[in-house]
């Protein structure tokens, strides 16, 4: 396993609100794992926890993150820093605000090449230009002197991808890389991610609330709800026969023999509960059509069903 997240918990420093509660994720080398869930369920915090970038108000409350067999918690800060931006690269939603407004494109890329690959001077410059060309930014030489605010959002996301590629990472964490972009640009960025993945064979953890993105890129997907993983499965299985009622509600399409025969999408009943005031047992049970008395009392464990599919539900949707 390239990345093994076990029983990861995060809470807020002040109130003790649980943001993540026992999150397990596995990602093999070269694999693409999609992480889906509604806004606020903890997808970004999962990414930040993996890269050790939690905001000041949040703390780890347990669990471990192992990268390539090494517990990240056992590393000292310089060693973790070498991993970040080196073997683990990250791209974000809203690329423009994640780029330093006073740094030129060239400075940004050359910095990464210098830090993690020891390149400098003309070598770094040539390599930076090559990276820009590789992610489809035309007129790369001239644009080395540009500032991020002179680029469109799509170009800035290309730039962040170029920066991520600079260090030839084993793992790319992509937190909603297309959410802030218009539809055409979204498609182009997804194409680009697919291309570089095919070229480099790096593993990708891709976060999105857009099931279409997940279906297109991911090999496997994990569904998150209120800080917990409620289901994980190969993408085809997840879309064809979701086992957790929440997944099935997200997909908005109950399983049938014919996967094309779907109900029209419908919103999930009720509203997302507040993390500060979660219902007991399964956090989804008040909104669930299949709830049983036990659901409000105990937390269902993530249990293996078949073919790499696991679901945290006492009364899963039949998948046969």
């Amino acid at each position, binding site marked *: 396993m390239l990345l093994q997240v076990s029983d990861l918990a995060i809470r807020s420093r002040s109130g003790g609100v649980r943001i993540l509660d026992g999150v397990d994720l596995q990602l093999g080398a070269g694999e693409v794992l999609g992480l889906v869930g509604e806004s606020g369920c903890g997808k970004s915090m999962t990414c930040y926890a993996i890269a050790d970038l939690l905001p000041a108000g949040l703390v780890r409350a347990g669990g471990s993150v192992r990268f390539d067999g090494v517990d990240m918690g056992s590393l000292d800060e310089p060693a973790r820093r070498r991993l*970040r931006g*080196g073997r683990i690269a990250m791209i974000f939603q*809203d690329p423009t605000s994640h*780029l*330093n407004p006073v*740094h030129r494109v060239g400075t940004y890329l050359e910095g990464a090449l210098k*830090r993690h690959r020891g390149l400098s001077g003309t070598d770094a410059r040539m390599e930076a230009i090559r990276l820009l060309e590789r992610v489809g930014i035309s007129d790369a030489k001239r644009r080395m002197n540009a500032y991020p*605010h002179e680029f469109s959002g799509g170009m800035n996301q290309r730039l*962040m991808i170029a920066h991520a590629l600079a260090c030839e990472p084993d793992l790319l964490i992509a937190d909603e890389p297309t959410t802030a972009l218009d539809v055409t640009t979204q498609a182009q960025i997804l194409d680009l991610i697919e291309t570089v993945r095919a070229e480099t064979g790096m593993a990708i953890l891709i976060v999105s609330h857009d099931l279409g993105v997940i279906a297109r890129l991911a090999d496997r997907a994990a569904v998150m709800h209120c800080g917990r993983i409620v289901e994980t499965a190969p993408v085809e299985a997840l879309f064809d026969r979701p086992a957790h009622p929440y997944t099935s509600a997200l997909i908005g399409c109950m399983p049938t023999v014919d996967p094309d025969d779907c109900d029209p999408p419908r919103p999930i009943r009720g509203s997302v509960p507040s993390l500060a005031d979660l219902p007991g047992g399964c956090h989804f049970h008040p909104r669930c059509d299949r709830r049983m008395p036990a659901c409000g009392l105990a937390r269902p464990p993530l249990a293996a069903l078949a073919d790499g599919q696991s679901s945290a539900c006492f009364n899963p949707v039949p998948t046969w």
Partner: protein
Amino acid sequence: MSRFLANRLLRALITLFLTVTFVFIVLRFSGDPAEQMLSPDATPEAMQAFRERWGLDRSILEQYLFYVRNIASGEFGFSYANGRPVIDVVTERIPKTLILTGAGLVTLILIGVPAGIAAALRRNTAADRITMSLAVGGYSIPSFLLGLALIYVFAVELRWLPSSGSGDWRHAVLPIATYGLAGAAGIARFTRSAMIEVLDQPYIRAAKAAGIAPIEIVFRHALPNASIPIVTMLGFNVAGLLGGAVLVETVFAWPGLGSGFVRAVSQGDLAVVQFMVLIFTAFMVSVNFTVDVLYAVLNPRIRLSDHGAH
């Protein structure tokens, strides 16, 4: 960029012109200089002679045109008080004021900016709270009171430094400390909040995600962004130093523009007052212009877009 600067330069010139006019109007309507300068028992003939000598008997419009023409050609007239050329009376005081305010500015930057950065990095710790309480204290004391307190401690009680005059460098220490400490308090608070705001920006998290070392994040990624508002604030500080010179130089009996201004006003020496107000304005205008230029240099979003108003 060039359009931005041309725009700012034009604004500066307009400000200067308006000040010239405003000063003229205020001073000419605030009383008859002849009555203020001459003793109450001066004869009407002496009064008349004074008015003729300084052109005060002509129409207001004539006086104004005369005044503007003189200023434009560098003629500032003579001090009513002692007949010396105004330009000499004033220019001999300029370096004195520049030494104090310049050294004061350097001091306040050297104390205020590092203190603000340190407090921002240790946000909500005891060190942060102590620094900020000191800053609030320093910020709320008027600078001349701070000056008096320094005189009391270092000149009267400890007798380490002279309390007034301008003989050697030792005379400059307390007034510079007054400017430096009073200004550092405000800049420390401002730097702290500017740094905190920048450190919370997504691009700082992205920099951490790229494995950049904390010290580099602070000085190469955060500070250049925070320096944009800090420089603007420093511009206000310089303006404050020049304004504060009136009080601080008087407290320390330092023969600069500030104390000279107080003296000229109390003597009703209009020619000198007029020129000093112009000099002050010219300083302010050039400080603002410098800030605008620095702002554009530090902020690529202004530098490159010609329509960049902030």
